[in-house]
């Protein structure tokens, strides 16, 4: 019971922490857009069967091949198979979001663990981890993914697996360099002197120290992964039975969308990718701004300067004017 209580409290605490962080992003005008879009995507992905007007897998409706957008088929139908493009778009959200989130979270775990170990434990462990990073960096990811899918078959499981195996390196490096800074901070040293175990310091001091950077990187990783997933699906390396935006683009190209001028067939999945990636990017960038305000672009100072009331500024300046009195030393009181 005690353990359960402890675990529950921990989960609650971290949920509150995440909630507070989301609140911070929500306050940001740009962050709000990102959060709303992510919520919308999640809603669409979960309730896809209810939202989609047609069965996107249905290829039997041959009479309705290559339709232009209409009220019935909002984005028309495919030229070769007569599938409803709007319904495909809705279902495509699932793959994109699932692959992006699962990979992003897995990378966050692996990257954080290995980055913290490399940075805090150092020595042999650090050496080993960084050597592996060096090797990972020179292996071409896309060709390797193609080879692996050729060997073990095509599925999103394999794609996620490869993304995770190759994706943690960047995050681990970033986390490691921050951990190296934290390691020399006074509070970590104080904890060490007080006899805190390595495990205690890593979980209680280092992990909270890197958590913001971790969340920010996870949001950006999700965005990057969704682009990469679209690319792999475009090459036909995803699950052949699933509907994904990347695959839709490939089908549009091979199905003659370019040739017959069915631009909506290309634009639709493109916009899907755009919205999903944009939403996560926005969240990540807003977090970056919160973490590192020095880099902020619209520092507002220029807008501020334009709106400055010149008479007010003049008043401020004039208010500083004053007379200098002259007097003899003896007369001062």
């Amino acid at each position, binding site marked *: 019971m005690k353990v359960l209580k402890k675990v529950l409290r921990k989960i609650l605490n971290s949920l509150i922490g995440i909630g507070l962080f989301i609140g911070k992003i929500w306050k940001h005008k740009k962050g709000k857009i990102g959060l709303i879009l992510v919520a919308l995507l999640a809603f669409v992905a979960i309730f896809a069967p209810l939202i989609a007007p047609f069965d996107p897998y249905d290829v039997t409706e041959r009479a309705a091949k290559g339709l232009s957008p209409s009220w019935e088929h909002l984005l028309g139908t495919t030229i070769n198979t007569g599938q409803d493009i709007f319904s495909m778009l809705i279902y495509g959200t699932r793959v994109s979001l699932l692959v992006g989130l699962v990979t992003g979270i897995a990378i966050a775990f692996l990257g954080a663990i290995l980055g913290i170990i490399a940075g805090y434990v150092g020595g042999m462990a650090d050496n080993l981890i960084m050597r592996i990073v060096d090797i990972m960096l020179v292996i071409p990811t896309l060709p390797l993914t193609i080879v692996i899918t050729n060997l073990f078959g095509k599925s999103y499981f394999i794609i996620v697996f490869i993304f995770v195996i190759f994706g943690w390196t960047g995050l681990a490096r970033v986390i490691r360099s921050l951990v190296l800074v934290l390691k020399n901070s006074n509070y970590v040293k104080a904890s060490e002197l007080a006899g805190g175990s390595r495990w205690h310091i890593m979980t209680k001091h280092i992990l909270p120290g890197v958590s913001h950077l971790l969340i920010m990187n996870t949001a950006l990783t999700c965005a990057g992964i969704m682009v990469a997933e679209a690319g792999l699906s475009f090459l036909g390396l995803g699950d052949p039975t699933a509907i994904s935006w990347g695959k839709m683009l490939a089908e549009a190209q091979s199905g003659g969308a370019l040739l017959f001028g069915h631009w909506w067939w290309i634009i639709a999945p493109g916009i899907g990718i755009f919205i999903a990636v944009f939403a996560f990017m926005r969240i990540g960038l807003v977090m970056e701004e919160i973490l590192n305000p020095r880099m902020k672009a619209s520092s507002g*100072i220029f807008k501020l*300067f334009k709106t400055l009331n010149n008479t007010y*500024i003049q008043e401020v300046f004039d208010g500083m004017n*004053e007379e200098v*009195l002259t007097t003899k*030393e003896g007369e*001062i009181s």
Partner: protein
Amino acid sequence: MSDVLLGLKNLKVIFPAQQGIVRAVEGIDIDILKGECVALVGESGCGKSVTSLAIMRLLNTPPALIEVESINLGGDEITKYSENKMQDVRGKQISMIFQDAMTALNPVMTVGKQIDEVFIKHNKLSKKEARIETIKALRLVGIPEPESRAKAFPHQLSGGLRQRVLIAMAFACMPKLIIADEPTTALDVTIQAQVLEVLRNMQKSHNVSLLLITHDLSVVAHTADTVYVMYSGKIVEKAKVEDLFREPHHPYTEGLLGSIPRLSDTTKHFVQIPDSVPHPMFKPTGCYFHPRCKYATDICKEKMPPLVRLDNGREIRCYHPINFSGGENNE
């Protein structure tokens, strides 16, 4: 008043921000005579560095807004100078020594090259001629083996040597005025003394005026001729250095002096000034110092005291000045 080298009149600097206006410098006058060393003293955040950058016209606008009646350098009004003309003034007539030589020197350029640039720009020398001058300049500030040190990168030199390099760079063209912004703060105490010694010797032997910006009165005592004490963007006291140390008139100055430990002082504890400088956006009413002043009365809370110029040249901004040895109104 022909021997005034730099006449700064009524300098005001503000920084508009979303939440309000930061009043960094609120109309200060500084006169620096030829060959004189003037110290500008105050706690961090009181507007000292902003003042020095404003004199060099190096403050970026935006974010800063500046109003100044006059910056007169040896008879020339430099407020009206174009940026191009100002570039000829910087380094040639006024130069600057910054606080932390580690960050103030370009890490990817040899220190020799960085000094060469000054000669190439202002004396129109070739690279070779400039290097000869650079080595002379380095030798002048007491850097051993200047030929090889000129080829070193900043990170290869010790902190003391780096600071000497900055001094050599500032004195390169023998400008009329050198502004030293906390030149020794980043150094160890023993090195501090050496560097100050170099700075003072260079200043005296070449008859250059020096504006020394510091929070450390012990540095002032050894170096300066005249002292301006600044508090929260205003000058609160001006005096010759001996006068100031003998009888500080402003309670703030007294507090600053009290914070210097003295061996001879066996009876008293440190006198400390409670609290810290007010935030420049939320300054108190009346005298800015009154919340921290033990002499404060009601008038101090209501009205900013005027700056009073005494006939012996001292200036004081206080309703309750202290330490008048000869006067009737000794506290």
